[in-house]
């Protein structure tokens, strides 16, 4: 069970108010999609969830505990780019999470532990359709394959929360539909909570169980930095909690 609670959250950089008075409660196994104009604090919000930024005021709680101030294995992240390790093959990229958690000293697994990890990684590699590319390096993969690997790499650690920062923004529209099916499949398999920032409104309605719109309520033309953005719409959606079979219409 994962509950995310945000109470009267503010984030300021110097005189610039980025987020003001954000309140939110997200229950277990939700798929939260976040939209909003550029510079409206969506990414700042995500970075706070990740632990890269700390709130200026207010509270950010996971299961009632304050958010740690650094990234950790309970919150996975998929960035738009650069989140794979270029010196590791696809299989090694996928294994890394299991190896790091299983071997605090050398960061590598051996013997039976390694065989178990390999089995688990192979399963997931099949699930994301990358089994044939196991021995390739990330730069030999297409953009869609790279993102699939990046998602699998996070999911293998079974995070409570998965954060997606415009993960499909740089992909061909044709590939995006496949990626939607994949992320829904993994979300239902692992029962995690997903926060996804996106620019694609249709995507946000299609995937989410809850849609958040970040926008500025007040604007002072003389002092554009004086007021920050907040959640202006918090819309519960139907979502796809049951397994998805066929391609989604219009995906």
């Amino acid at each position, binding site marked *: 069970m994962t509950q995310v609670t945000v109470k009267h959250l503010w984030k300021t950089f110097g005189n610039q108010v980025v987020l003001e008075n954000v309140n939110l409660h997200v229950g277990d196994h939700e798929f939260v999609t976040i939209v909003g104009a550029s510079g409206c604090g969506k990414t700042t919000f995500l970075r706070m969830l*990740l632990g*890269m930024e700390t709130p200026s005021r207010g509270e950010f709680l996971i299961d009632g505990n304050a958010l740690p101030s*650094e*990234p*950790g*294995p309970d*919150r*996975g*992240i998929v*960035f738009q*780019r*650069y*989140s*794979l*390790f*270029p*010196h*590791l093959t696809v299989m090694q990229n996928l294994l*890394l*999470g299991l*190896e*790091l*958690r299983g071997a*605090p*000293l*050398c*960061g*590598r697994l051996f013997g039976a532990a390694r065989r178990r990890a390999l089995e688990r990684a192979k399963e997931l590699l099949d699930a994301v359709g990358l089994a044939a590319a196991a021995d390739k*390096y990330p*730069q030999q993969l297409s953009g869609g394959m790279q993102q699939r690997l*990046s998602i699998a*790499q*996070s999911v293998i*650690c079974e*995070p409570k929360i998965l954060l997606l920062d415009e993960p499909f923004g740089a992909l061909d529209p044709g590939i995006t539909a496949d990626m939607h099916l994949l992320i829904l499949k993994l979300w239902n398999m692992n029962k995690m909570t997903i926060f996804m920032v996106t620019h694609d409104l249709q995507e946000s309605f299609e995937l989410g169980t809850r849609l958040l719109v970040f926008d500025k309520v007040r604007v002072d033309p003389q002092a554009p930095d004086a007021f920050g953005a907040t959640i202006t719409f918090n819309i519960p959606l139907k979502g796809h909690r049951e397994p998805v079979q066929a391609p989604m219409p219009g995906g």
Partner: protein
Amino acid sequence: MRRLVNQQPGRGAAFGLSALPFILIVAAYLFYSHARLLENPGDKLLPAPATIAATLHEYAFEEDERSGEYLLWNDTWASLERLLTALAISAFLGVTLGVAIGVLPYLKATLAPFVAVVSLIPPLAILPILFIVVGLGEVAKITLIVIGVTPVIARDLSMRVAELPREQIIKAQTLGASTWHLVLRVVLPQMWPRLLDALRLTLGSAWLFLIAAEAIASTEGLGYRIFLVRRYLAMDVILPYVAWITLLAFSMDGLLRLFRAKAFAWAKAGV
């Protein structure tokens, strides 16, 4: 007529063109050497190829009368031993220091300005200090190279670490990586090819420091020999020695490049 920037030589032409400067310089040497020797058969400045070959044979394949050693190989071995020892020490120190500075902000704040200042001390200027402190032996020569090369490698690698995408470092932490894990599995493996690049770039200055140290205080070595025979205007020794040193440096550079391409297929040169 296409623009010059779009005109490419073919494979054969490119090879011929690359040989051209070498051919020109050899031809010019032969011409002027011949001209000078015609005027004065005792001229020592541009010895004839036959004289150079005879001297080279004497140095490489005949025992020295006084020491009973083959001078060229003896000098080569002495110099290479110093150079490779110093480069190995520099690589180890440079990687340790560079990665630590690149990864740990506290260490960066403490050491980065210091390393930057040290890297600007001209190593040859402190050579006298080294001779005074550690004596005239091998340690002084190796230390000189290490002092000259290590800060360059350390600064280069710390910058390469800083160039790693922030996303990678964050992602590794969300996969459960500790600081030690980050160094061991994410940063270091990506620094090995960078280290080879840094070594290739510092190879030239390493040779410079080696020969300077050997010239001042030594009893064997390539640099020692050149400066020894300078007194007798023995260009027939100096010229082949310089060519030999160049060939050694060139081969080391090529081996490093080859090794990088073979061992780190994921890291294309220049990426």
